[in-house]
């Protein structure tokens, strides 16, 4: 008998708001970069440094936050700040070393990022052996590869902020690496079996992750779990754009669609903040998700 999953209206609400917030955040992050490049590219490296400093301070600030919801909320924003800074640093590196766009249109910074794949593997190797990591995917790998000598780590996590920031960075990094390897004509290419497989696997995994996500009904857990869920969906958005089947509204600055996305971001931010403020009283223990 399969175990019956209890899905409440409450968990559906938390899931949908979290998904909208993370998706809109990624879209807004993209359009900010596009607008800077279009209107005043001179400021982009100052902007990158600001993002790095603010991102770092935001993550540092989470040490004073008592609730995992707030820690996760600010952790995501801190991670995004650092991610922005990294993208711009690669842009600067590409600029200095004369890295060109590829003939199928990939940007220099992502061409450089693709070759950070070994750095990613080194970090990931550490993570799959790091016993305090609670990522479900890493749990799965540990089980299947028989990597754990003892029981898995349990217990309270005092600060989800840095963890969430790191999670955001690692998942975004993984997403970009997969896409860039898929787009590389000298490895696979946008119309290769790998790119099609990535598209369909991402599409399927997105629904699986949403199914898992609706099992949580707190903004801390939901926000954290929404990061991989949205990033997986983002693969499909990017691939559809690469195939010419979608004009990304944040690249081509389609204000009609962007207004809806920005509206969704404002409303979801309001709902998250309202909920987290309402539950201000006392520390709420959450399930270990990531």
């Amino acid at each position: 008998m399969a175990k019956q999953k209890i899905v409440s209206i409450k968990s559906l609400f938390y899931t949908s708001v979290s998904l909208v917030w993370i998706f809109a955040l990624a879209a807004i992050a993209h359009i900010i970069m596009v607008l800077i490049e279009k209107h005043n590219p001179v400021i982009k490296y100052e902007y990158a440094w600001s993002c790095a400093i603010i991102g770092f301070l935001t993550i540092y600030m989470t040490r004073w936050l008592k609730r995992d919801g707030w820690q996760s909320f600010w952790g995501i924003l801190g991670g995004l700040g650092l991610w922005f800074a990294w993208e711009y640093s690669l842009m600067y590196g590409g600029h200095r070393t004369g890295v060109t766009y590829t003939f199928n249109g990939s940007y220099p910074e992502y061409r450089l990022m693709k070759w950070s794949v070994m750095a990613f593997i080194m970090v990931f190797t550490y993570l799959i052996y790091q016993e305090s990591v609670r990522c479900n995917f890493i749990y799965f790998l540990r089980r299947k590869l028989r990597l754990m000598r003892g029981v898995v780590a349990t217990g309270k996590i005092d600060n989800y902020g840095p963890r969430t920031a790191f999670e955001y960075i690692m998942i975004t990094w993984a997403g970009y690496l997969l896409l860039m390897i898929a787009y590389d004509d000298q490895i696979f290419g946008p119309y290769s079996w790998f790119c099609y497989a990535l598209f369909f696997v991402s599409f399927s995994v997105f629904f699986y992750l949403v199914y898992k996500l609706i099992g949580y009904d707190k903004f801390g857990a939901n926000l954290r779990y929404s990061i991989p869920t949205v990033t997986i969906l983002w693969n499909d958005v990017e691939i559809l754009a690469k195939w010419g089947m979608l004009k990304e509204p944040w690249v081509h600055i389609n204000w009609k669609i962007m207004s809806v996305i920005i509206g969704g971001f404002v409303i979801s931010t309001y709902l998250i903040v309202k909920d987290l403020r309402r539950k201000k009283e006392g520390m709420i223990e959450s399930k270990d998700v990531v």
Partner: protein
Amino acid sequence: MKYLKLLPAMMLLAMLSACLTEGEVEEAEVYKTPYAERMKMIEQEFLAAEKEGKIITGDIVEGNSLFNGTTEPQNKTYGEPYTKEEFRAAAISAERNSKLFILSKDGTLYYPTCPKGQSVSESEQALRIHRVFTEKQKTSGEKLFTWATLVPMTGREIEICGDIYPGYAEVKGLHIRSVRFEGDYIIGQD
């Protein structure tokens, strides 16, 4: 007071920021003009040059294979400088930063350069170039890239508004200000 410990790290970051972005300040003046106005000026400049017959029209060809004689775009039909296999090789070389040239209809070879007088320069192939649209493209309502770079244009015909320099050994220098071309920047892709 204990948070003052963060101050050195922040100052270091700020100093690094200032050092690394110093070179960008030179361009700051250009961007004081609003984007729409800048684009209008670029378009007017392009159309004025077109009226005076100063637009360079040519195929973008890859330099390494041209100069070692592996390909002969100069002996091909204008507008089709490469076979399918040659194109792939040329495009891969171009994205590895082998130099791209513009081969005009009359057979003149142009080497894209930075403007005269610029002392420190960089790869022209990595730079975004402003794009001017045809009337048909403007009325189509299609969302097209407002800029282009040279590598994805390898093997394609392109119209260029820019400054021509005498160059050397019959290869002329060309500082590209704006470009115009049919279709989208990346064909079939976003």
